[in-house]
């Protein structure tokens, strides 16, 4: 049995004596006695380090992780190159085992790192400012919607069909309590058009939220959206994959009021879906309205540059039920990972990674377009690193056959509305894919498709 209590038998006895108690059990005498010390049969008898590692390794081995299959799946979680310095640095105990920096004098390193994270992310998004992180991209988008609802006092949110359906679900969960209505802005030909947005605009609309790129991989042209929305007093929200902002026009350049994103592509492992990193950026006029921690630069009593948690009057520990959000714990360690990732790659490396993802995806798309039976959707629309295809058979079956050949293929879209459907699949290639891997999956697909069509 492992044990992280340092007391010797003698020390325990002396401490109990000091308290005038005869046993450890006496410490819980204020608890309802008949309910104390329940039997915990599942808990077992405890393990050593070695034993527990053996057990979890057994579970880990049964999974098709990226070390055993070649991943061509994205849809909100992406395999990217992560420099070894990232885990090495965020694993330092001073960061890993610290709490939210409530005592600034003893937390300057962490506070400065958060300040630098805010700097890097706001810059990447082309926005004035960033907070210190939220739980994940989806909850960040939902919180941005709540900001818009509060700011405008209006009840309707226009949600682009280009937004990740999982993100839309989370927004729905978050806004249902406050009696808000979600209206879907349909896409045509893989894009959200101004002609689809305009008829939906009214005095009831709090905000429109769009996606860079869309869940389906397309890259939208948001020209004129900002003007159309502010003309009606509505806010313009964008949800962006930060990896794509290495190349694509940023939310700030499109004129967004608030912009959110999933920070996982910035040096954070896929990890079965979490913990991830919610990014929230805003223009300065929303500085006092956004949720989450903010670190500001100031000076100490002797005039040294110093960093502190600031604008805390927005937060739950001060404002309670009137706070901007209930968020307390965030994802600081992962924001540190994202900052270190961006510092290690620098502007040049970050652009190279983005450009390689795009080029690999385009190479894969071209290869797929040449396979009989596979239809590429939205062939004339710009894409970043994901795209849709359609098979003459259920995509789930294709996925299963690819998995048995060592590939985690694109995501089968059974149960997805909009451009989704049982025979469709969302493919992704990032900068980590090699030419040989792309050739390999193409030849596996040729085999699968020829088996199917009997050629």
């Amino acid at each position, binding site marked *: 049995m492992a044990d992280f209590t340092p007391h010797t038998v003698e020390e325990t006895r002396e401490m109990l004596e000091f308290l005038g108690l005869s046993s450890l059990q006496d410490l819980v005498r204020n608890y309802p006695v008949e309910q104390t010390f329940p039997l915990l049969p599942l808990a077992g008898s405890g393990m*050593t380090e070695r034993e527990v590692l053996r057990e979890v390794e057994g579970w880990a081995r049964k999974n098709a992780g990226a070390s055993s299959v070649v991943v061509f799946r994205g849809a909100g979680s992406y395999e990217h190159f992560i420099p070894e310095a990232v885990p090495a640095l965020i694993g330092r105990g001073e960061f890993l085992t610290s709490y939210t920096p409530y005592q600034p004098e003893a937390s300057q390193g962490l506070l400065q790192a958060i300040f630098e994270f805010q700097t890097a992310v706001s810059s990447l998004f082309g926005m004035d400012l960033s907070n210190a992180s939220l739980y994940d991209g989806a909850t960040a988008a939902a919180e941005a919607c709540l900001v818009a609802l509060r700011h405008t006092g209006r009840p309707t949110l226009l949600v682009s069909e280009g937004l990740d359906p999982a993100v839309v679900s989370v927004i729905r969960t978050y806004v249902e309590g406050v009696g808000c209505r979600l209206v879907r802005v349909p896409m045509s030909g893989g894009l959200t058009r101004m002609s689809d947005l305009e008829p939906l605009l009214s005095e009831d609309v709090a905000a429109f939220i769009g996606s860079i790129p869309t869940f389906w991989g397309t890259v939208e042209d948001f020209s004129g959206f900002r003007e159309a929305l502010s003309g009606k007093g509505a806010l313009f929200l964008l949800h962006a994959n930060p990896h794509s902002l290495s190349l694509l026009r940023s939310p700030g350049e499109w004129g967004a009021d608030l912009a959110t994103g999933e920070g996982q592509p910035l040096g954070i492992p896929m990890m079965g879906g979490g913990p991830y990193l919610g990014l929230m950026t805003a223009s300065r006029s929303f500085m006092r309205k956004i949720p989450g*921690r903010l670190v500001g630069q100031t000076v100490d*009593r002797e005039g040294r540059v110093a960093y502190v948690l600031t604008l805390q009057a927005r937060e739950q520990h001060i404002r309670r039920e009137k706070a901007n959000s209930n968020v307390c714990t965030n994802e600081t360690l992962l924001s540190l990972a994202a900052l270190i990732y961006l510092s290690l790659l620098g502007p040049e490396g970050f652009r190279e990674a983005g450009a390689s993802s795009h080029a690999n995806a385009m190479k894969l798309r071209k290869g797929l377009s040449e396979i009989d039976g596979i239809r590429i959707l939205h062939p004339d629309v710009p894409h970043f690193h994901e795209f849709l295809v359609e098979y003459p058979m259920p995509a789930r079956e294709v996925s299963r056959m690819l998995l048995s050949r060592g590939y985690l293929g694109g995501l089968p879209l059974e149960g997805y509305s909009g451009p989704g459907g049982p025979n469709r699949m969302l493919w992704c290639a990032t900068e980590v894919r090699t030419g040989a891997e792309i050739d390999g999956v193409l030849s596996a697909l040729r085999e699968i498709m020829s088996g199917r069509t009997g050629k």
Partner: protein
Amino acid sequence: MKEASVVSPSGASGTAGTRPEMEPSLWSLSRSGARGVRPVSTPVPGDPPGLPPHLLRERPLGLPELSELETVRHFTHLSHLSRGVDTHFYPLGSCTMKYNPKVMDRVPALSGFSDLHPLTDEEGMQGFLEALWTLSELLKEVLGMDAVTLAPAAGAHGELTGILLARKYFGSRNESHRTEILVPDSAHGTNPASAAMGGFTVRTVPSNPSGHIDLEALDKTLSDRTALVMITAPSTLGLFEEELSEVVRRVRAKGALLYMDGANMNAFLGVLRPGDLGFDIVHINTHKTLATPHGGGGPGSGPVGVKAFLAPFLPNPRVVRSGDRFHVEESLDSVGRIRSFLGSSGVLLRALAYMRMLGEDGLRKVALYALLNANYLRKKLEGVLPGTGEGLCTHEFVLSARSLEKSGIHAIDLAKALLDAGYYAPTVYFPLIVPEALMIEPTECESRAMLDRFAEDFIRIVGLSRTDPDALHHAPSRTPVSRPDEVRAARDPILADPLRDLRR
């Protein structure tokens, strides 16, 4: 050369100390053209082929340019300017800053976990689903609950989940007139904030002078509009509600549900179960009770346990077992999705390993030794400053520095002097109902020697309020900076390094 955060562990007088040097900003270290790690061996030349110019970024990325070594040094220097449990005693009340066993860092890093895509076909993630399912079963057992969701990303996220569950449940019973949530005045700020986010009206229940829920006040606030009563057990004063069973009875009689904020679950682990106490919903902070690291503010995780009648409403998606296979399912009755994927697996797997390592006896020792350490330290400090509550405390205790106000000393001054003495500070000014509060939680992981040393320094520092109050006003003097000007920070906030705008 820079001085690391080697702070003398004791004997700080509050007079001028040596301050470690601050680290320059990342952007001031940046050198145009410098390269760090290269992500690809053969960069793609020219403009991206499939993207028209009007969709491309024009604004500079604004990222710093450094070598890999320069980056590593920068962040290593920053780490020297911060304190964690690994470096200092961290008696931060209500935060359970216990030791985070190193073996647990290895678990999520294993291939098959860290590199697992969350939308992998079920047959490619059976081991992962089994691990999460196993954790749910263990949590059900220690919480005394019938079902668990692992989805919530933090305690406050768990609270919101619980509140949405209550809304959905009463909706399903045509009791949507229940629009109020009751929260004691000693509660964490997240409780009322979560209730408001869930669309409920918050009503505050005052505490009686001994810090327990005032039953008369409870009766006055309870009504057929009450949906949920949120109770922190043990309370934020480090007390077990002596009338808890009576509170439970009265809330039930009104048809409302009971939520336990499990932030203080370290006092119960293996010894007492929220389900047995009569709670319908509870969250547990893995980053407190189950030893997952706080990471400077996160990631944490806040699994929620519920009684069987609430299970249909738990968030989507969920892990279920049929035979020896594990599936990911969605339910139409669910409150919906509260995050993108299943849960914060990297945190949850650590918690699983912790629980497996401790076993039944180890889990019990957590609560018992947390109580032993808290009561020992409290008794050591008896008479130094007045505390709350009579008899035994639970895993933490609260002292009030109000009596020092006449010497012009406040709780914050004591906290800063403790930083000089080589500790992190206790939680100050919480709970709000105790004036000049200092909330101290030693956890089960500290040795008697550390508690003795801390008590000695604490007593010496309180003594300074009479002999040398100025020394306390000037503390801390050994940290990288003295007290920052928070008013200036909030007046015209600087939230990003202006140097970024000079970078490409």
